């Protein structure tokens, strides 16, 4: 995040969220995404009613760090489960059960597995939501009547004003060159 980044404001004083452009087909939006990626934009997104195969590469998206969050949680769950059981049945309150040793590893396995899976599941879900900035009640794009069609039959690219390369006029004219229709300024933050 560059400190000296400009903050764009509309004539009415509203902050600018970004510039949106519509495209007719998945192929059009796919090719436009490749060009936006090559132009060096980083804070932008493609909106479509269904997953477009290969759009991640076309957008130049990096792999998510979510697996690392999941792995850390899995490790914590496994270690935590082993420590908890060893301390409870081996140290704090040893009881003879069926003549077995106080803290054998065998009965620890199911609980270790379950706690590992539980922690991983929670961390993956919460991590996914956090990385996506969810949940949120409102989004500037939802103010646009035309934008709602991206859940039906429209394809759109929105380049956000938070992008270091964002410039209201140049970004708009680039989207025009790429064949974008109904190009519009999105207000809000």
């Amino acid at each position: 995040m560059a400190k000296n980044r400009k903050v764009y404001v509309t004539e009415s004083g509203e902050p600018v969220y970004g510039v949106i452009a519509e495209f007719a087909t998945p192929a059009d939006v796919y090719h436009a995404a490749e060009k936006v990626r090559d132009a060096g934009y980083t804070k932008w997104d493609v909106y479509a009613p269904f997953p477009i195969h290969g759009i991640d590469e076309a957008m130049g998206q990096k792999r998510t760090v979510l697996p690392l969050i999941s792995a850390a949680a899995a490790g914590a769950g496994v270690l935590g489960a082993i420590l908890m059981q060893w301390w409870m049945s081996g140290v704090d309150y040893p009881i003879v059960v069926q003549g077995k040793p106080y803290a054998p590893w065998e009965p620890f396995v199911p609980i270790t597995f379950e706690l590992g899976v539980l922690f991983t599941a929670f961390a993956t879900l919460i991590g996914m939501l956090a990385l996506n900035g969810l949940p949120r009640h409102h989004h500037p794009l939802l103010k646009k009547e035309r934008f709602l069609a991206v859940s039906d039959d429209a394809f759109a690219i929105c380049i956000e004003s938070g992008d270091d390369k964002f410039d209201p006029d140049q970004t708009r004219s680039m989207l025009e060159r790429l064949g974008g229709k109904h190009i519009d300024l999105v207000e809000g933050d």
Partner: protein
Amino acid sequence: MSAHAVHAHDGHSGGHASDLSHHPLLADSNVRLNGSGGGLSMLFLLMGVAGVAATVGAAFTGAGKLHAMASFQLAAMGALAICLGGMFFTLVMHLTAAGWSVTLRRIMEQMAALAPVMLIIAAIVPVTDLLVTKGLLYTWMNPSYETNYLLGKKAGFLNPGFFLIRLGVYFLAWTLISVRLKSLSIAQDRSGDKWLTNKARFTSAWGMLVFALTTAFASFDLLMSMDFRFFSTMWGVYFFAGAAFSSAATIALVASSLLRAGRLQGLVTSEHFHDLGKLMFSFTVFWSYIAFSQYFLIWYSNIPEETIWFTARKSNGWESVFYLLCFGHFIAPFLVLVFRDVKRSPNALILVGLWMLFIHFVDMFFIVRPMVTTRPGAEALTPFTNIWVDVAAVLGLLGVLGFALTRLLGTAALVPIRDPRLPEALEHKNYV
């Protein structure tokens, strides 16, 4: 890439199979061995002959007949498991109408075709034991146990006549399934008739049921019955889990080797290896789950007929093999295969696959070989006494398997070249 978004539906239309027959990737130089691999098959044959000869020879040295029989049998059962795993994957791919794996399916079919042959090899020791050595390895065949109460209760199942009939049934069932699936696939190579795919799918429906039952019972007969006192209801699944584990590794090894030999270029890509790696990973976890469940319930309930098996395998030096399996059959492959880049790399999968084959035979070693050291009078023997016999037997049987598989792969195209789902396999991609 860009064409993909628009033409992704092509793979599902089905009727395009014949359009692909002149596809550059399906040129003979890419999908046929054309006589190459001869050097490798000779190497395998040499290894096989030397290994088997050393094992047979060991019967007449200090190692003794029992040790040689156990070593041969553990190696043969390991090799049989690999072939049965190939049959399982062929059946699954047909049943699920899998598109991605079409370019790997011929390898599975060829592995499956060797299952009846491997069964014959794995029947040598038990039949010899029944007729000649009278229950040296398979204790229920030993006349001195005739009055044993437990054996008396099991004699309805464990008797020579029924045993031989069962071996015959397994042979017939596995021949029927593997020959039918392979010949349907090869007939399609010639005719391009897409309806043969439906026939293969129908065969797989009853074939899977027959496969499951025969594999489970074969594992009772050929492995579990060695110690007739022991029984485990998980045994069939345990053997099957090892079979799927080792054959997923073998498929990856064969496909990687073919890639290195300049074949299957563009037909088997990182995308296919990614999914194959997922199968290797999932059957690592599945084997561990089954092996642990079997051990855990026996450990907990503490019933002598069941614990006797694990007691023999957790004492007198066998603990090290027990913990090696925990580490090598679960923890190590799990921690390595969990990484996406490993699964997507054919070369990394060669290393992982070799390790998985090694540990698969350690598993068989753990099942079979304590039969030698638990005998009265064998107290001084550790798992590693005369280990060379086991190494020779495993290398020998791997040589036999490798020789037969290399030769078989040369007899037909390396992929089902006119399968209606081939376009789907060519376009296959993991979008994560």
